């Protein structure tokens, strides 16, 4: 496994872990079968993403992409947040090993899920945002 220094940095010192109790948007994506679950909370004021926090169950890349995604999203307005694609996250991390690319997709999905939640709650339409297929209401663990 060849992780870039950036990935290792964000894995070792993940930014913005935790929860936002009064989050304006929250999304959880992934599934336990594949071993990755990301939950993202957003605090949004005046259309600006003031804060973002995540919790992630997953590998080093999953943690690092979550961390980077929250860093990238903070300070953006809601529409700009849509620019934070999996590609953008990957580039910001100086790349990912091929079999870890799906983690960056998950980070994008987590953003979308949180924005969708915000959009549902506030009625604020976000261009290009679709209902995320992967959003999970509850963590469906195997028993």
């Amino acid at each position: 496994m060849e992780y870039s220094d950036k990935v290792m940095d964000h894995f070792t010192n993940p930014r913005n872990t935790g929860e936002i109790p009064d989050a304006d948007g929250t999304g959880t994506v992934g599934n336990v079968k594949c071993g990755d679950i990301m939950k993202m909370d957003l605090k949004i004021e005046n259309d600006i993403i003031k804060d973002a926090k995540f919790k992630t169950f997953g590998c080093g890349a999953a943690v690092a992409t979550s961390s980077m995604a929250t860093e990238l999203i903070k300070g953006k307005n809601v529409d700009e947040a849509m620019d934070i694609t999996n590609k953008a996250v990957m580039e910001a991390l100086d790349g990912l090993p091929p079999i870890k690319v799906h983690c960056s997709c998950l980070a994008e999905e987590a953003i979308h899920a949180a924005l969708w939640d915000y959009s549902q709650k506030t009625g604020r339409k976000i261009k290009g945002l679709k209902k995320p297929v992967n959003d999970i209401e509850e963590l469906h663990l195997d028993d």
Partner: protein
Amino acid sequence: MIYLDNAATTPVRPEVFEEMKPYFTEHFGNASSIYSIAKDSKKAMDKARKQVADAIGAKPEEIFFTGCGSESDNWALKGTADALSKKGKHIITTKIEHHAILHTAEFLEKHGFEVTYLDVDKYGFINIEELKKAIRDDTILISVMFANNEIGTIEPIAEIGKIAHERGILFHTDAVQAMGHVKIDVNKMNIDMLSISGHKLGAQKGIGVLYKRNGIKISQLIHGGAQEQQQRAGTENIPAIVGLGKAAELAVKEMDETNARITKLRDKLINGLLEKIPYCSLNGHPSKRLPGNVNMSFDFIEGESMLLMLDMKGICASSGSACTSSSLDPSHVLLAIGLPHEKAHGSLRFTIGRENTEEDIDYVIETLPPIVEKLRAMSPLYEDFLKKNKQ
């Protein structure tokens, strides 16, 4: 650096490397040649063959050197299938075999063979009654691994061998993980074929053995020159063969002592972690497991993350998470013993070797709990669990 991944591979033992050295640059003769310098190679090889044979109670002419443990497994399965396809096309194996067996079995399924993959119980044991029921008139081979590479479970090999022989069916066992760590007697255990890999017991990578009982005819896998009694072609890898002979001899000679020591370390590690870390559990059987194997699941967190953090603290281990496989599924072995996916993803394997000390174990017991804690603090699963527990 604390190396606790001895089931993945071991360093070549210094004593073993010393034995090997002269055969690289000096006594390099091709063992098939007739001139006298080739006799050195031949003699060294004969000695190694005997050392390996003695280690498992076999005869030297029943030892065939191969290019790795995977080749031995492939040869046993494909060779038997090809040779006995007229007799039958049914093979029995288990759900917890190494991929060298499983993927070979799947290949054979694509070529008209039927394979029964036996279930295992929560410890990883096959059920003898199920095995008996699975046997059909056209069953040509039973292949059950001696000890599992992930959870260390030691299967009831002698019993399986007995059943196979009562029904006149060939019995192969993948002993790659067992060799050198568990007593093996191919005759008492009714084993017809047995796979060994050098690098799991202090010999080089890229050398394996298929033990094949006298009189058993299977098709060749590697055709060509007349090496290995015309059954496995390829110029013999003398240094690696010499090393494997030495390693096998040493392992058996030292087995009781080494196992006693390593078993103590193993149990100390298991108990230390169970005690210090909540929501974790042992995978495999508490005692019927390889002396050096520790496999545990840590709820709410994922294996690779733990590995990376352990690595930063100088500890090498491995996990049953899917992180390095291109399928995203976690270990088929952990799923087969009934673990839910998230527990399988959250597993770690420590495999203790000859060089590990009590200090190593203490260090792991001290180092892992804060790692687990840190990862749980950022786990949505743990958050969820805590919330539900509060309710």
